[in-house]
């Protein structure tokens, strides 16, 4: 059987994106211009009450940073996706999404009118019947959040660069929601959000599923 060509989509700065990625297919996220945080949630496509769990993922791999080999675990401790390639080496599991509400705490009430990731997740999730209760702590691809000895934690300058990418393999049929983070108040996007590219590659083209 001849495999379909990869499907590429450019997600503009500040925008949302979603797709169902079938078991064995891969999703490549390319940071086109560098230092762009990509907020990411993933659900079992057949049962969206089974969804990405930051704590189960952290627990399963014994650490808070994601890179090649990291398995994204669900809240039922089942694998959803696996990081099979990564040019950057460190991605965030702790910081979650920005929201209009949390921006008022983090920076001040002057930020209220700014667009935020939670709004992207709500709008994109609504296409699949998902609501606010379905949003949980998410992954921030390309975002750099170190933790100091005393527990101090914060978003600092990113480690990514133009053209770097990471690739995820779907371990079952999954629904992926992405918010191409619009944050302009911290270094997660270098204070200037930019576009990223999503590429879904068929299982057939890459050979048998692992």
């Amino acid at each position, binding site marked *: 059987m001849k495999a379909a060509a990869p499907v590429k989509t450019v997600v503009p700065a500040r925008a949302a994106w979603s797709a169902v990625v079938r078991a064995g297919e891969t999703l490549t996220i390319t940071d086109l211009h560098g230092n762009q945080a990509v907020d990411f949630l993933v659900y079992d496509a057949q049962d*969206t*009450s089974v*969804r990405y*769990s*930051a*704590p*189960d993922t*952290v*627990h399963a791999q*014994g*650490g*808070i*940073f994601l890179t090649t080999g990291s398995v994204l675990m669900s*809240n*039922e*401790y*089942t694998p959803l996706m696996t990081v099979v390639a990564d040019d950057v080496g*460190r991605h965030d599991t*702790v*910081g*979650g*999404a920005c*929201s*209009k*509400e*949390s921006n*008022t*705490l*983090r920076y*001040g*009430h002057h930020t209220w009118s700014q667009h935020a990731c*939670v709004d992207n997740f709500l709008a994109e999730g609504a296409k699949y019947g998902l609501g*606010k*209760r*379905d*949003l*949980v*702590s*998410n992954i921030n691809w390309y975002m750099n*959040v*170190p*933790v100091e*000895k*005393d*527990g*101090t*934690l*914060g*978003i600092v300058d990113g480690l990514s660069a133009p053209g770097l990418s990471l690739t995820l393999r779907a371990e079952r049929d999954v629904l992926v929601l992405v918010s191409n983070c619009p944050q302009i108040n911290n270094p997660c996007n270098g204070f200037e959000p930019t576009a990223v590219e999503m590429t879904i590659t068929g299982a057939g083209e890459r050979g048998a599923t692992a």
Partner: protein
Amino acid sequence: MATQTTYGARDHARAQEGARAEAMPVVPARDWPEPPCEADRLVWAETVAGGNYTHRMLARGTELRLTDPRGDACAHLLLYAADRPWERLNVADTVKVQWNAYLGEGQLLLSDQGRVLASVVADGSGRHDALCGTSTLARNTGRYGDGTPQGPSPAGRELFKLAAAKNGLQPRDLPPSLSFFQGVEVREDGVLDFTGSAGPGAHVTLRAEQDVTVLIANVPHPCDPRPEYVSTPLEVLAWRAEATRPGDPLWDATPEGRRAFLNTVEFLAARGLA
């Protein structure tokens, strides 16, 4: 006692009143033997068995003290705005907004709406965790051979599902949880070290800053390395007190926290509640 008849069965059941177990609620709460405040202020007094759960709605201003009498309790906790469960604990905002991954005295437990659900007003443990969540059926089945609520090693998430259901909530309403009395530290490279318990007698006191629904599961921390399921009773006491107000040291402790309290009070004032 003969229980062949309805009368005998009724007498047999009624004769149980006054029985005592190690893990049980004390009702009324003021009968708790060693109250930490004037007994009349107590509103909740319970000992939660290892591998069990409890839940309660608490009014704004109520203080909730959790105690680990024997050193092997782990209080996994979720908070929701009472009757508005779409506003709930957001662990990511809690650590990110406050620039700290560790829970302790002075930390605020933030909702996803930029408001405070509860604050940590006293901490006699120092061993808590906001990163690893609770245990699952799959994980406990793998580790202990069983993770069902009816078995010998219940998983925290399974107990949370039951506590949630009793408040009209479903599994999809369960976000990542906090755990008290069993700690985790993060190394520079992101790897986690489990620090375990501070030992018998540790306690932590939370203060409700809105009317909240509290779900608590007392199960081993998912990083507990011991091969056996070790979970000892958890003591839960709550009493009437006052919410944090302008002028309290906690109100102005950080700019982020001050804005969270301001958001909370503005929201409640608009509803006629503060």
